[in-house]
């Protein structure tokens, strides 16, 4: 009770503020607050519950047994002081003042002694909140003390920059490619003037392989392009491929003399010049 009284004690030379006519001198000693940084004072509390807890703890009071009248008086003194100093006060602080005042008034009413239980105790709700908040406050302080990265623990950095890393190549499914091709065909059809001739693929493939074999040879005898083992089907494919290559101007079919062997050669740059 001494501490509580000292709150409103007068006659101190360092008068900080005047609340309701009473001089105000008692800054909380365990909080270092420069008197000219009053905003800091309010910032030091995380809210009305924090302030209440501070008042309770400072006097070694037990949460379950808060002398409501006394705490309310102190709390409201602080609030008054803060508003007198024109600090911007969060609404929550005023709400708490109202809650305290309400509890105080209810405590003054006569109690039904026998049927007393916690729901009837006007303090119960507040106590529960204070307890819960204190719990969390303690936990947050402990979390703050845990060794943590960047402050107490550091990642290690071992050089691996010289290590060769495989760059895997993208995967393609046949279906993906076919769907892409379908799109091309649709677009090509819309550009109607472009007719994509529907050659069988075996012919297109053979066209490629004939060009390939001509690359190293100046010319090939026509019959060399037909393999007996391929049968009639192969002959047809090769024949169509040669005709198509000729039509596209990629090869020349040459017969130097009548009844001589027919030769196939890549169309040379010279031959198309006039």
């Amino acid at each position, binding site marked *: 009770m001494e501490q509580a009284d000292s709150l409103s004690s007068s006659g101190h030379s360092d008068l900080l503020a005047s609340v309701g006519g009473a001089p105000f001198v008692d800054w909380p000693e365990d909080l270092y607050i420069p008197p000219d940084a009053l905003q800091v004072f309010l910032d030091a509390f*995380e*809210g*009305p*519950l*924090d302030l209440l807890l501070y008042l309770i703890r400072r006097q070694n009071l*037990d*949460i*379950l*047994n808060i002398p409501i009248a006394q705490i309310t008086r102190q709390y409201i003194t602080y609030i008054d002081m803060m508003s007198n100093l024109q600090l911007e006060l*969060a609404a*929550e602080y005023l709400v*708490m003042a109202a809650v305290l005042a309400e509890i105080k008034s209810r405590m003054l009413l006569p109690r039904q002694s026998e049927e*007393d*239980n*916690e729901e*009837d*105790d006007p*303090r*119960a709700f507040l*106590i*529960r*909140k204070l*307890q*819960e*908040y*204190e*719990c*969390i*406050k*303690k*936990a*947050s*302080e*402990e*979390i*703050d003390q*845990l*060794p*943590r*990265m*960047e*402050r*107490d*623990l*550091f*990642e*290690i*950095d*071992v050089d*691996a920059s010289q*290590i060769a890393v495989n760059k895997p190549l993208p995967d393609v499914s046949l279906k993906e490619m076919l769907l892409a091709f379908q799109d091309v065909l649709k677009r090509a059809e819309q550009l109607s003037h472009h007719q994509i001739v529907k050659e069988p693929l075996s012919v297109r493939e053979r066209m490629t392989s004939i060009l390939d074999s001509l690359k190293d040879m100046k010319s090939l005898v026509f019959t060399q392009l037909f393999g007996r083992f391929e049968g009639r089907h192969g002959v047809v494919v090769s024949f169509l491929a040669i005709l198509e290559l000729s039509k596209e101007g990629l090869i020349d079919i040459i017969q130097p003399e009548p009844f001589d062997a027919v030769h196939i050669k890549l169309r040379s740059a010279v031959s198309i010049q006039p």
Partner: protein
Amino acid sequence: MELKRIIEALLFASNKAMSVKQLQQIFPELEQPEADDIQSAVEQLIDDYAHRAIELKKVASGYRFQVKADVSPWVGRLFEEKPPKYSRALLETLAIIAYRQPVTRGDIEDIRGVAVSSNIIKTLLEREWVRVVAHKEIPGRPALFGTTKQFLDYFNLAALSELPTLQEMADLSALAEPDQHVLQVNSEQQETNPQQNPNNEESTEAVETKTGLESAVG
């Protein structure tokens, strides 16, 4: 090559914690070692480094090599940037989410008794310490927040259960408890706590509570 040696190299080269499963998946599908073998290699490595300036530590998302806390004041001098500081408001919000998850912003405000600034929630989400786990099916469908593995990793924890235990709340029913005898028993149980935990201020106070009741109720 010795499995332990490969695991050691992987854990050193990786820039984040790796689980046994992730380590396993580094190996080609048909050559993957058993999880048990990897686990035992990891445990041998933990022993190997027990007395060095670095340690192999299990955190929520796996194992990582880190510089031990006792040398951190020296290591801190390596970096010009000071480690980030977190406000009380942020730490309290984080604690509520950690211990009471899943919680809505309203729940947090209820417990703290003040509004929670959007910046705090944003910072927690950006650091990936907290995520939205669901939405509560009440009007407005507020987000329900929970903590992440990154939160545990950052605070050097392997699981939520490694968080400091929450102080037990003193029993509210004591307020109206008519039977003084029961109270005695309770307070004796309470009394054993402070010995286990010499700095446990809270539980000593709980004892006081019970004795203090007489004057309050009587």
